[in-house]
């Protein structure tokens, strides 16, 4: 069997003599790039990740709406109070007279 494969045996023996392997350390920034991509992909494929993402956005939107509603409501309350202070007595007087 060896006779049959001699040219390949001789060639592979010669090919194995090749010198030191080239630099095998990861290139600068390679690990950072790979990990950033992997973690970004994992974050999106994790069960519930999409829901979590939209839920968080919804929470922010709801918070913003609450603040806006409170601000608008407060301004109405102030207006109402001023109106009452200015005209409240007149109304009572008019009602009392009638």
């Amino acid at each position: 069997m060896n006779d049959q494969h001699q040219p390949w045996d001789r060639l592979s023996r010669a090919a194995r003599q090749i010198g030191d392997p080239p630099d095998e350390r990861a290139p600068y920034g390679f690990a950072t790039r790979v990990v950033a991509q992997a973690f970004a992909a994992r974050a999106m494929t994790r069960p519930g990740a999409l829901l979590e993402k939209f839920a968080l956005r919804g929470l922010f939107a709801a918070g913003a709406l609450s603040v806006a509603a409170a601000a608008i409501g407060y301004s109405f309350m102030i207006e109402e109070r001023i109106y009452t202070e200015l005209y409240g007595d007149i109304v009572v007087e008019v009602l009392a007279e009638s």
Partner: protein
Amino acid sequence: MADETFDIVGSLDRVRRRDQVAARELVEHLYPLVIRIVRSRLPRRASEEDLAQDIFLKMFTRLEQYQGNVPFTHWVSRIAVTTCIDQLRAQKRRPEFRWADLSENEAEVLDNVLSDTMAEAPSDTLAARELANKLLEQLSPRDRTVIQLLDLEQKTVAEIAALTGWGQSMIKVRAFRARRKLQKLFQELQKQEKS
């Protein structure tokens, strides 16, 4: 060279808890292993870094599937070998291997191995590696992987089984078939040289 004292189990625990520093350390630790597999199976090296990146991304994606039944380095090696084989399948194989395609040094080396006058000078070594790679390109990706590991990296059948996840009988059959194909290639080249 990979750090033998690296705590893979501890590192994996941290990576599963989404520790990016641990993940970067794991990539740096495994890079020599992965790049050696990539380089030995991808003669056209233009995209070796891209291929290594694909392998690491697959590793992170499948990390939850790793049960610890085999050493983690073997598990990663299998991902690397499979990814390289897929890449080789995607590459177009040369339709025919001809004496005229060889460089002067490669033709000389081929002449020497056919006539058993191999001197094994350093220049011949480089040409021998190039010639061996060209011949291996003519094999199917799996046969090529087996021969590469057996004859160029001198791994045992058991080691190849561990690295690839293939059965030992299958590896032996592939090796036999691949060597027979290589023998045919040598015969065809010899005919071309004479004609």
